[in-house]
């Protein structure tokens, strides 16, 4: 049983319907129920790769350090150029051989104390131009550090990628493993779309988020620290001034993000609503026309379309404000640094290169902050997805669920081909899906080897449940079922199921060739065995008319095969498996009459010499049954042969009359 938590729908705005994955589909505005725990567990998944994760950290520090030191070195080079430039200018006004002190003195004597201060701050030799040896030296180091830093950054990205992919790969295979360990009741309870979305969309979302957060969040955090450090190193005063902009930037972005997030949620809601309308109008196209609803449908669409326009405009506009505002903050910073820096250069307390470096730092500073702010949303959605995946992974497993390994399966198959007589007995069996709604109660019956047992009754009577219990798809609440005298819970599920062949109403085929699909139950079957099975079940006939014969691929929608043909393949599949015991859920009426005949012949071929349980929808097909069970509300209300039951003039006779007599009127 799954715990109640899995059933709880977390607050989510998922684009309703709309197949395909648009850039806007789903995933935004979701919140994790338990962010902390789930986030910790998500990080825990990285543990196997902790060596590489640590390397990522070191590489990140290295690359950020070099990226951060670069501008400072570049500033030094600019200083060298600037000093040379000023030195040359000053030198032109002084006699050759004059020193820096001479130049300062000359400036002071002219009463230009500002210039004197300015010159005092420079390491210049009047008359001498730019010291290109020094510049070359500095630039070479800068170049090396820059290039080295980018290489480190690249390696970091490389490792992050490897770590994330390995982690996600593990997560996928864990989920797949889990699918085989879960009891069927879990699948019955979950809406199928919900479950599929968990194993597909949510894992993809986790993958994307891990990648982005691991590479960007780390780099951004390091960057903020590194840049801040360098700013204080270069000029504590300017750093303090620049820092004032941080809370402003954080505050404004935060406010806008909050506003825009609610607008985006609104936009997604409207998108979902509109897509729902579109889907409905197109799926019900014929009805919309014939019931004269075209106009009202279009009016409804126009209204939703207009609402979507309004809300998406608001969302886009508000989020579009972030960039200009951040730029404004950045530019304000820029202006302040330029002015204050300029003033300090003229007063000789700061070099021009430092101002240049500072301008670059202030630009480098705002970007990671914006990034961290936007990462918060991403992180929320990633953790919410991870949480849903974890819920699946934590769901209670089947009792003694051992996932069958290949050896196990082979042994089971071998055992199955040994003599199994095929005697099935139900002894006081009770079962229900829901404790409050008893379904099968105290049911007993015996099917002797080689007998055909037919089960009839209205929908919901428990016919399918009954045969599912033989397969041990569900566990009994009371009583026991035996196969050849052995309790079915005393053998492994694999072994039990290997003895039973099943043809389900729902004609599930997997994407592969027709041959692969027939050989599904016995992958080691020879080509000849496949052909024999196909001939016996009339598959061979239509396969020959297909362009690629047995190599024809069955596609997802099965559009190249009719429903009847698909059903025939599932019969061939069971035939090839040569089970000792057969369970047939008969095809319903959507198959055309000719194929229907073939199906019945094929099923008859399959039943020969085997104990079989047949859920019959058409009473005409079960005249030869050795035992007919009439079920109503989970109970067997009548049992006996065709003739006996007709004679009894009870439930079976009524069913029979309804089917064979002309309309009741």
């Amino acid at each position, binding site marked *: 049983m799954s715990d109640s938590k899995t059933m709880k729908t977390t607050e989510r705005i998922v684009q309703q319907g709309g197949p395909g994955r648009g850039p806007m589909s789903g995933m935004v505005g979701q919140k994790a129920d338990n962010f902390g725990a789930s986030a910790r567990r998500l990080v825990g998944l990285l543990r196997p790769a902790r060596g590489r994760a640590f390397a990522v950290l070191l590489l990140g520090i290295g690359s950020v350090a070099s990226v951060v030191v670069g501008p400072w070195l570049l500033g030094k080079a600019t200083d060298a150029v600037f000093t040379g430039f000023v030195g040359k200018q000053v030198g032109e006004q002084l006699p050759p051989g004059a020193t820096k002190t001479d130049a300062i003195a000359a400036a002071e004597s002219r009463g230009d104390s*500002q210039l004197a201060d300015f010159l005092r701050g420079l390491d210049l030799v009047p008359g001498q131009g730019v010291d290109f040896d020094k510049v070359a030296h500095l630039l070479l180091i800068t170049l090396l550090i820059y290039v080295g830093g980018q290489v480190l950054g690249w390696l970091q990205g490389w490792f992050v990628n490897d770590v994330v992919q*390995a982690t996600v790969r593990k997560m996928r295979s864990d989920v797949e493993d889990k699918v085989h360990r879960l009891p069927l009741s879990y699948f019955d309870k979950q809406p199928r779309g919900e479950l599929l979305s968990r194993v597909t969309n949510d894992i993809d979302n986790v993958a994307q988020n891990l990648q982005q957060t691991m590479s960007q969040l780390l780099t951004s955090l390091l960057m903020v620290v590194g840049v801040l450090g360098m700013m204080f190193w270069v000029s504590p005063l300017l750093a303090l001034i620049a820092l004032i902009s941080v809370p402003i930037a954080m505050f404004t972005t935060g406010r806008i993000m909050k506003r825009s997030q609610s607008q985006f949620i609104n936009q997604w809601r409207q998108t979902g609503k509109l897509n729902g309308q579109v889907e409905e109008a197109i799926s019900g196209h014929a009805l919309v026309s*014939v019931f004269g609803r075209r106009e009202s449908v279009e009016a409804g669409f126009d209204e939703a379309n207009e609402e979507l326009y309004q809300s998406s405009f608001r969302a886009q506009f508000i989020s579009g404000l972030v960039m200009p505002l951040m730029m404004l903050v950045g530019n304000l910073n820029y202006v302040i640094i330029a002015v204050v820096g300029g003033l300090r250069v003229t007063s000789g307390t700061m070099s021009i290169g430092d101002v240049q470096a500072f301008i670059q730092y202030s630009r480098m500073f705002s970007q990671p902050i914006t990034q961290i702010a936007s990462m918060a949303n991403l992180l929320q959605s990633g953790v919410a997805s991870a949480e849903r995946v974890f819920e699946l992974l934590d769901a209670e497993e089947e009792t003694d669920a051992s996932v069958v390994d290949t050896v196990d399966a082979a042994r089971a198959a071998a055992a199955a081909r040994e003599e199994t007589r095929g005697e099935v007995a139900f002894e006081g069996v009770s079962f229900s899906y829901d404790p409050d709604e008893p379904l099968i109660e105290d049911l007993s019956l015996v099917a002797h080897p080689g007998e055909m047992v037919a089960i009839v009754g209205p929908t919901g009577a428990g016919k399918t449940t009954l045969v599912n219990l033989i397969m041990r798809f569900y566990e009994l609440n009371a009583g026991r079922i035996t196969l050849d005298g052995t309790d079915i819970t005393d053998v492994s599920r694999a072994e039990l199921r290997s003895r039973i062949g099943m043809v389900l109403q729902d004609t599930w085929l997997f994407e592969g060739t027709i041959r692969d699909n027939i050989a599904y139950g016995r992958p080691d079957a020879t080509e000849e065995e496949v052909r024999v099975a196909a001939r016996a079940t009339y598959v061979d006939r239509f396969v020959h008319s297909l362009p690629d014969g047995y190599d024809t691929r069955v596609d*997802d929608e099965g559009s190249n095969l009719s429903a009847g043909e698909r059903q025939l393949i599932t019969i061939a599949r069971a035939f090839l498996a040569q089970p000792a015991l057969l369970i047939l859920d008969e095809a319903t009426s959507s198959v055309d009459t000719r194929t229907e005949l073939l199906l019945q012949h094929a099923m008859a071929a399959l039943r020969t010499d085997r104990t079989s349980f047949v859920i019959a929808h058409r009473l005409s097909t079960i005249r030869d049954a050795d035992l007919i069970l009439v079920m109503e509300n989970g109970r067997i209300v009548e049992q006996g042969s065709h003739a006996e039951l007709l004679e009894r003039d009870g439930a079976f006779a009524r069913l029979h009359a309804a089917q*064979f007599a002309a309309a009741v009127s």
Partner: protein
Amino acid sequence: MLPRMLRTYLSPYKGWLSAIVLLQFTATAAMLYLPSLNADIIDKGVARGDTDYVVKIGGVMLAVSLVQAACSMASAWFGGQAAMAFGRDLRKAVFGRVGSFSAREVSTFGAPSLITRATNDVQQVQMLAMMVCLMGVMIPIMMIGGVIMAMREDLGLSWLVLVVVPVLFVCIGLVVSRMVPAFQTVQARIDDVNRILREQITGIRVVRAFVREPQETARFARSNDDLTEVSIRAGRWMALMFPLVMGVTNVAMVGVIWFGGHRVDSGEMEVGALTAFLSYLMQILMSVMMGTFMLMMIPRASVSAARIAEVLDTDSSVVPSDRPVTSVDVAGHLDIEGVGLTYPGAEAPVLRDVSFSARPGQTIALIGSTGAGKTTLVNLVPRLLDATEGVVRVDGVDVRELDPELLWSKIGLVPQRAFLFSGTVATNLRYGREDATDDELWAALEIAQAADFVRDMPVGLDTPVAQGGTTVSGGQRQRLAIARALVRRPEIYLFDDAFSALDVATDARLRAALAPVTRDATVVIVGQRIATIRDADLILVLEDGEVVGRGTHDELMADDPTYQEIAASQGITTEEVVA
């Protein structure tokens, strides 16, 4: 496709677009002016020790920044308006077009495909429109403006721009050209992995029944490994992208200082100009980068645009008459006269020379194997399709001449696949007649054998129904669809295989209850079960689009081999009838 679509659907918003261009131009110009002002601060203020000048230009820079921000915000407003209005109009056009389609176009495209085109594809193109409105205008201005400004600062150094920009283009191009196909493969492999998981979950019973868990796990593991392998490859290219671009930028910066230093030393350039040049170079490279990312979006949007254009360029095969007949004298008359239908390009016709007439009180049944043309024939009556030969007359008038609203008002259709709309049980039942009273709804439910389960629902008629009707069982959905047609009280009932999903007993009860209601109406039933149709006044046996047998049940049982075969497969033999 894409440029045409953008042109067509953005043209009503020319005013807004011009405003965007103007605003973006001003904003970009302001942005480009800032480094130049900064250069002035250095050269004319700092280098000459003129503090007043520094403060004054600082003020100007502040004003310019404010102008820049204001213009950017305003253009975000206009851009949002234009792009979202574009999306709205395009969506409306697609939806309107699909609404006009006949059943043929809907089935050619397939409903899921049409839904995707009207929703996701439109969204893709709208995203691109948004990008074009905002960045598409800014990037060229920034790039060209940046080059001009850089050249203005120092012509002698501008060769650096000419070297660095192409180098960056080539680097990005190289990475992108490998990264994009890799990511396409990733998407394909993700689809594979998801497909296998989906198969395993939907086929869980078969997997377990055949003890195929080991093979399934192995199959999944292979697919998972394939995905991981290609994801790692794609991710590594991705990891290279940013460092490569930054590396080129950094080298360029070092180059500017080195070559610029020489020009400063020789007096050809001022130090402030050097700093400004550096800023311009950065801005140019930034715009190159943004431009590349925008270009990367184009292929995807182009695919979507082509898919949308396909819908918009398809004309409905059913066109309403110019001078429709708006009133008729009789009711419930249906005449099919020598009707044939061949799809363009198809070799064999779907229907060939089918004729029959029905009058109020009569029931006509159609039986035959799948693909025999039964549904097609039914669809001709409400003109969901048009016949290519012969005439379909309702109340004596060719349906092609009738006013569609009038035609539809006469018909109650129960389609093969029962479809319910989201809402409540009541809104669904009133779908064809909004003024029906609750009593009328209950009466219809009683006849459709649906009253019991609706009564058992928590809030009866007001019970919510999910889209497509997925919250009720298949049989219940079918019965509600029948009730919905009954509420309409039409003159002609079309039951397209509406009874097959019901169990035999319910089917029988339903038909018995239906008889008095349809006494004055014309009924066409498509059926699979002999029991369903055996009381019809006329049964047509269809095979490959042709009528191969016609008559009452007894007549057909006596002399029609196809009908006998169908009957035999359902356990009904001639002897039984005789007996």
